[in-house]
């Protein structure tokens, strides 16, 4: 049989409706998120755009957990020790630094503010961290710190959207959406890209995890900390599970009659969507139910009350999602915008995030998942070495900030990049947002210049026309 005949035969089989129905009893991931044979989705011209896809080259990381610290944590208190800044507390910054510089709120020519916390040395590589990060400190042998991040934006909403989508303009696909587009998902009963939120809502809003111009199926699905974990997961009042099952059985049989009549594969896809929805009705609550987790695990994540939605609980949920084959989990914790009350603010936010973040890395490691899971921790920009609001606040600063990475393909126990003695400018190995994204995609086996989607006659990329893989942080 030649290839052409083989293809025709496969197509014929696909379109033989009974066959289709009987052979497609597969999961959320592998089946029909999108219109079958629809030409709408040109870049996803396969029946199921979420089916697992081959990466461009062998991947170091198979899944991602992104702990997004919205509001922009201060690198000067947490990650980038600056004894010189302490010495110059109260002095004005060197005038030559301020040329063309834009802060958001302050007059750039404001006094320098020494770091509010001392730094301690951790791990084999003697990496220094602020004293409010004791748990992160214990994990530094597994972490890679990039102290030379920089970005284009100085306001929160554009900054967060820049970090998550590679553009300050709203409406571009998020990193998670690009990842699903590139790799699909292996989860049968859960969405491929799940979003968890603690503290308050983010400045960037839903655009931080949106699909942009990619098909909506690639966007992040928020799992809610209270109420239905997935919107409208619960049946209406009075409808028990048996009624739901009976109803869906009837619906399926009625839709099968329509499928016979119209011969439209889209109807088969619809049948599958309802079946998957039914499975999600049990898989999502099962995921959120932490009663099967042992007490020492809860302690490790600093979870006091399993029913209370916190950053800690979200970290544990992230691990459970990753275990279940979810490709991309993103946590948003908007709590770092310390224009004033910096000292207490940093302390409080660290109390909430330090222990669980470290616990997640340790837990993934212990379960053998860390080696092919990419963990990212960081916000949308840094904070000014200059003071804002009396003596205890810092403004937005886009010239440098720190993030840390861990897991699949990342050089562990490493510090990349260097800032000047007051933490104002990058002086060595700068990493722009586009470079970071290029590197993260690289670890996922994706060439950022080849992961494109044609929209409006242009091949769009997460990294626009920029980005270089930062080889120095690869293991």
């Amino acid at each position, binding site marked *: 049989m030649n290839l052409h005949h083989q*293809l025709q035969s496969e*197509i*014929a*089989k*696909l*379109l033989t409706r009974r066959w289709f129905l009987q*052979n*497609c009893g597969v999961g959320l991931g592998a089946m029909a*998120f999108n*219109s079958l*044979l629809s*030409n*709408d*989705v040109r870049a996803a*011209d396969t*029946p*199921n755009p979420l089916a697992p896809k081959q990466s461009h080259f062998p991947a170091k990381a198979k899944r991602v957990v992104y702990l997004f610290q919205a509001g922009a944590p201060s690198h000067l208190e947490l990650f980038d020790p600056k004894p010189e800044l302490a010495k110059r507390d109260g002095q004005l910054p060197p005038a030559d630094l301020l040329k063309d510089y834009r802060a*958001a709120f302050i007059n750039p020519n404001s006094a320098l503010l020494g770091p509010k916390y001392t730094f301690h040395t951790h791990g084999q590589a003697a990496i220094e961290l602020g004293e409010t990060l004791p748990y992160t400190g214990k994990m530094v042998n597994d972490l890679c710190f990039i102290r030379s991040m920089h970005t284009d934006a100085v*306001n929160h*909403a554009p900054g967060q959207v820049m970090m998550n989508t590679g553009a300050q*303009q709203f*409406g571009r696909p998020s990193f998670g959406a690009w990842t699903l587009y590139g790799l699909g998902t292996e989860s049968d009963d859960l969405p491929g890209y799940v979003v968890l939120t603690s503290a308050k809502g*983010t*400045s*960037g*809003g*839903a655009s931080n995890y*949106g699909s942009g111009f990619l098909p*909506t199926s690639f966007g992040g699905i928020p799992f809610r900390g*209270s109420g239905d974990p*997935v*919107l*409208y997961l*619960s049946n*209406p009042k*009075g*409808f*028990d599970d048996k*009624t739901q099952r*009976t*109803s869906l059985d009837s*619906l399926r049989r009625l839709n099968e*009659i*329509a499928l016979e009549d*119209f*011969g*439209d594969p*889209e109807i088969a*896809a619809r049948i599958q*969507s*309802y079946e*998957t*929805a039914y499975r*999600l*009705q049990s898989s999502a609550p099962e995921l959120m139910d932490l009663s099967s987790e042992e007490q020492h695990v809860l302690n490790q994540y600093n979870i006091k009350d399993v029913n209370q939605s916190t950053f800690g609980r979200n970290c544990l949920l992230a691990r459970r999602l990753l275990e279940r084959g979810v490709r991309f989990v993103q946590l948003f914790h908007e709590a770092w915008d310390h224009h004033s009350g910096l000292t207490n603010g940093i302390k409080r936010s660290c109390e909430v995030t330090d222990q669980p973040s470290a616990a997640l890395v340790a837990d993934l490691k212990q379960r053998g998942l860390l080696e092919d899971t990419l963990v990212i921790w960081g916000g949308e920009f840094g904070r000014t070495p200059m003071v804002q*609001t009396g003596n205890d606040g810092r*403004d937005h600063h886009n010239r440098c900030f720190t993030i840390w990475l861990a897991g699949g393909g990342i050089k562990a126990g490493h510090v990349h990049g260097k800032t000047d003695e007051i933490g104002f400018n990058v002086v060595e190995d700068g990493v722009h947002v586009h470079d970071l994204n290029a590197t993260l995609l690289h670890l996922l086996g994706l060439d950022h210049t080849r992961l494109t989607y044609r929209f*409006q*006659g*242009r091949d769009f990329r997460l990294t626009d026309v920029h980005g270089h893989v930062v080889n120095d942080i690869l293991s």
Partner: protein
Amino acid sequence: MGNHIVKVTVFLIAVLVLASASMSTVLGADQTIDFQQHIRPILVEHCFKCHGPDEGTRQSDLRLDLREMATAKRNSGELAIVPGNPDASWVLMRVTSDDPDLVMPPPNENNALTSAQISMLRQWIQAGAKYSPHWAFVPPRQTDLLDLREDPTTGQLVDAAKPISHPIDGMVAHRLKKAGVAMSPPAPHDVLCRRIHLDVIGLPPSPSEVTQFVAVAEQDPASAVAALVERLLHSAHYGEKWARHWLDVARYADTNGYEKDLPREQWAWRDWVIQVINADLPYNQFIIEQIAGDLLPNRTQNQLIATGFLRNGMINEEGAIVFEQFRMEGLFDRMDCIGKAVLGISIQCAQCHNHKYDPISQNEYYGMFAFLNDTCESKSWVYTQQQQKQIVEITAEIGHLENQCREHNPDYQQQIADWERSQLAAAPQWEILDTTEQVWVGGVNHPEEKADHSVMVMGHPTTEGTMYVVAEPQLDGITGLRLEALTHGDLPFGGPGQSYRGTFALSELTVEVKPSGSDSWKKLTLNHASSDFAEEDQPLVLEDSTPDEKRRIGPIAFLIDENIETGWRADRGPLIRNTESVAVVQFAEPLQLPTRTLFRVTLDLKHSPGKQGVQNTMLGRMRFALTRSLNPRAANYDHAATLAMQKPPAHRRATETAAVFRAWRKSVPELSAMNQQIAACQQQYPEAHTSVLTVTARDPTDRRNTFLLDRGVWDKPKQRIRPHVPALFHPLHLGEADHSEDGLCGPASATSTALAPRLAFARWLVDPNSPFAARVQVNRVWQAIFGKGLVETPEDFGLRAPQPEYLNVLDWLAVDFVAGDWSTKHLIRTILFSATYQQSSQINPEILRLDPQNSWLARSPRFRAEAEVIRDIALSVSGLLNRKIGGASILPPVPDNVLNDTFTRPDWTVATGVERYRRALYVFRKRSMPDPVLMNFDAPNADFSCARRIRSNTPLAALVALNEPVFVEAARAMALRILREGGTTDQERTAYAFRLCTARSVKPAEQAEVLALLKDCRTRLAEGSLSINEVATGNLDRPLELPTGCSPQDAAAWTIAARVLLNLDETLSKN
């Protein structure tokens, strides 16, 4: 296992798609090479990136998009293309070379040509390398329908005597014949009836409407369709359905976006869209009014509202933003929107550099940008028709009374002139303060001084705070300080304040000085304040309408009483609310300070009633001045008159002349009775019921020039650019403007006879000679009906757009559209009357195999309805739908956990009663919190213009239709409707339910399935495993309002069944 099979199939289909794609480009020996169809796509994909229109990235100075360049002898002596001689053509040598240094495209591009492509290039060059312009860049022409009578397979003329019944059908049949397939039979009448309803009004037909249609159609299908289409085109729901398609591309939303995402009033614009679509406003006029309605002669309120189109984009109000940055972002968005909505070309590539594929340069991008850049970001009141009438009456009455004033004083002009002279003589001499620093304490705002030394505060909607300006004036004998509150088109209703009404309130004004060398500021004693106007002393009324007795507002004395709890406000009421004001304060002692003394004026703001910024009362534009005159005071008439008097009478605008007249008549004691009458009349002036964001022309003294921006970055201006359009398209003549002195801003004065550039641009966009205007609209309408445009990428008709299968249909309709006076109703009629549209949507496996995308249209497409239509179907079949047209958006139920996930939790008073069941068009669109129902059915969230929705089919959507409260309420209501109207037995009711949901008769197998479900439910209800009340009402205690003769159990069982039927694929789809 299942997984494996699916993956294999996925792979095979992908291969097949590719295989068929390349098959269609491998030509038989007898076929000719067409540049458009075969060659240009190769050049675009493989060559233009480096050898195309963008000179910035052009390599080796070789340009292949123009024949004269591609065939010209190059400096090296080589010839890229030698027509008729492929072997002498370097292009062929390079693309076939084995040498990695020579082969094109370079190996690292991973973009090598296939042998089929190379062979086509060879054949094309052999045949003379003929170029032809891209179809989308030349105006459409209609195919000669007579050509369609040629049998595509034999070349023989067929049916020469028989006229072609319908142009679309003629073209489709011709194509199908070539492919050897036939059109599908007509859809059953009931299915067609529902299809037409969904397409024209977005609502399904009632069972009786279906029955009536079927009865007529059985006799005469053509007239039945004609009558139905006509009736529906006249329904007000038509405008609702078709407005939504435009709202997508116009990025309509009810909030401002970004972090704050505050609510905006914009629904008046949406109402305008509904109204004009219902009135079938010609499409060219539809576009002109939205781009430049404010500039039309004698423009109406509606034409101003229309410009809200340009303002539908996002507004950043985050703390500390630079207003200009996000104004520019807004303009980029406006360009993107016009590109997608009207031009059908992706111009935004050229924001940063010349377009790589389409011949649009960066210069030309900013040329179009310049038409839009010189506007005010204005906000305008919207009055009801009744109010507009009232305003006309009041204005006439005031005019009449003022005429009486004139009649009483026949020499009034002389009197005014004398009065003006006396006023000017008595007025203090003011020196405008040139400020050196403008600071908002804390930095949440960035005040800026303009060329006329006025200071503007834009951006964050601040409700509390302090700002100051610093200057270094000559401080010798200064007796007083003047603060002018000035108007500006960028402020709401012209300002001068930023409040909801454009008013301001100032809590405190202080003045300090710091002599050179001193470290500290010394506060000066202010001992007298006067103003042209101030309100009575009253408590500040908070957002929730409660008066705050502690915080008081009104008299000018409050400005300097050293009490932050009291403030000055000057709201003159709706007629002359948005006018200038002035305050003058006196220093206790004339200032005698050494030179180089710094002088600081501080303003405190603490009289905004709300917290979220909607009610901020910041002063938007202000100017300071100093005087040495003795005992300086503000005049006791409106500052507008004072400002007008600074101009010679002949140069005053009508509003300025009126202000002076008003001030004068109030000063004449004999006119006091008349003045009182006028004041009483003013009292009647109505408050507008809503507002809308608009654009308006800038003041000629405040013109804004456009610069090409380096790499598209807002604060990196390069050379100035005058308004112009891409050379690619039909020309735009600006008349006099072209010859004005600097040639940059268009007409320099309002008296110029040349068209305002933006209006000229608007007309140019819909010029009958435009290659894009009609095509883009035709394609958009076609896409709405067929689920896919004739050009699949409605936002991009450029060189990279897929070649349309039915370009002839597009062009025929486009020409017909313009000939039909741009009537969209005519266009819809034409499409709906075609047999192509009326075909059955049943899928023939053989045709599916040959044409999986249904590009040939051998059947009617069937697809899931749009998000809004799905919700409206549920409301409609359940009988809950509230058919009211227009008005403000309604707040749908949204789960608490969604509301909590927002940056600032919105006030969310959920619509109850009938308001809850308005059409989905009226559901409030909050950008940062997309409506969870509509979003799951792929409604765009308006962050940017959306010309094409992508349909998904997800479990999350299934959960919405099964469990979302409004859908569940629909199921419960539908159950009662079935019991009420659907007969007395479950058989009859099932048949009725199917008519409701699908418009067709139930099939026996379906009947059996539903009856079995009902039986099962009844059993469980009877045995008490389910609560009848809870199922049927959602509440154990709520009493059921049952139709006579029905049991509670009927209601419960049918609620379960109705929920199933509302979720049928057929219910959710257009079949």
